[in-house]
């Protein structure tokens, strides 16, 4: 079973959000990395770029497939995880830790409330795989 930590918010596109003050740390879920397989390439935006909620901010690629990654919240990119350039496998090994992707300074922190709770996300992935 995929790991779904309690302290995070989730999107239906399989991203997670950890709120740190007015900043959202964003990555893809354990379920998403498992579905993708070995991650070999991660394409991320630059600091300072602006994104609206549900907009694509990059892509993650396995040997076989490309998946777009969507930001669940609106705002300005304050930091990107540049270490994924050389070590994309961190997304598989530690999707909620060292595999984080970007930090966004949220322009509307209320958007977090519309995201899925851990229990809702688990139900969602179960329903999706049936």
């Amino acid at each position: 079973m995929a790991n779904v930590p309690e302290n995070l918010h989730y999107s239906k596109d399989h991203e997670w959000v950890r709120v740190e003050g007015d900043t959202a740390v964003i990555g893809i879920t354990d379920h998403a990395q498992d579905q993708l397989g070995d991650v070999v390439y991660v394409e991320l935006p630059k600091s300072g770029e602006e994104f609206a909620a549900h907009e694509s901010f990059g892509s993650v690629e396995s040997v076989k497939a490309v998946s777009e990654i969507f930001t669940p919240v609106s705002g300005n990119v304050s930091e990107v995880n540049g270490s994924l350039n050389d070590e994309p496998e961190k997304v598989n090994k530690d999707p909620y830790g060292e595999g984080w992707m970007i930090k966004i300074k949220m322009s509307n922190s209320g958007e977090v409330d519309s995201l899925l709770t851990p229990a809702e996300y688990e139900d969602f992935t179960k329903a999706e795989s049936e």
Partner: protein
Amino acid sequence: MTAPALELKKTSLNEAHRKLGGRMVEFGGWDMPVQYPAGTMTEHLRTRTNAGLFDVSHMGEIEVRGPDSIPFVNRLVSNDAAKLIDGQAQYSALTTPEGTVIDDLLVYRFAEDHLLLVVNAGTTEKDWDWIISHHGDENVELRNASADYCQIAVQGPDAISILQKLTAVPLSEIKYYHFREGSVDGVPAIVSRTGYTGEDGFEVYAAADKAEQLWNKILDAGDFGNDDGVLPCGLAARNTLRLEAGMCLYGHEIDETTTLLEANLGWICKLNKGAFIGRELLQRQKDDGIKRKLVGFDVTDRGIARDGQDVLIGGAPVGHVTSGSPAPFLKQNIGMAYVPVEFANAGQAIEIDVRGRLVAAQIVPLPFYKRAKQ
């Protein structure tokens, strides 16, 4: 007959794949494992260093029997089936009158009056219809025997020692692109020294209901579960292995819009063997010269080229990527593409349009990977 769109065909190993945790996907109308829990990267590398096991039972088998077997087949294919001896296999292609490709295939010769054509899964019905529609007055009997056979490939440097544990057939005596009939774990089988990975290895054909027995015995004989043991491999690893080896995949490098000469398959066009479908066009194209050519490329920027993306030179689109992927063993992002012949030289700089971003690449010689000869 075509199966209903949603009802996928299953090989006899479907249950075995699920038990092993295979992730099943649709491929050419078949429900097949794209990878197992070890993952594509590990499956690929293990095949290069030790051994990989592949279910290729979805491929089609067409039996040709009768005194005119060789002349009949030779009229439909580009390579020269008359050159085969008993126990030999040959890479060949079914061609259209335009010299393009209906399918690529292996022709096995059991006897002068008995051949077996092994064709791609997704094209089996099309090939069968094409073949029977071209049956004239030759004295041959044709049978689509695809459902009768399972086909299991064991590939990699350890393939020979693993398979030898299960058979008295002296495997080291079978030359590349040759085969023997014999028994594997007591099961009557065809043991063929062929494959689609760039490694030494064997493809074993047997009755479909013996598939699970052979599959499990080969896993056991190959110490599946050990770090240097055989690994079951899915379609994704099969694809990256053949791409590193520079081999064509039907529907990607070759199809009914590409000629054999454009795809570097002139070596299977025996234009002097006598008449065959497409010969005139291929002869004319050979005389006039081809306009475009299949090449290999390394991506030199960061980025991964994927199937179908545009190839540009000097900002202008000149062709498209037929297969693009990370190459797990070479640790390089590679691909194959059609480009105009004037640009088809090693060292030529090209760009690939990767979802709107232009990524630099360079044409390199094929194959990308060639195993060291013992």
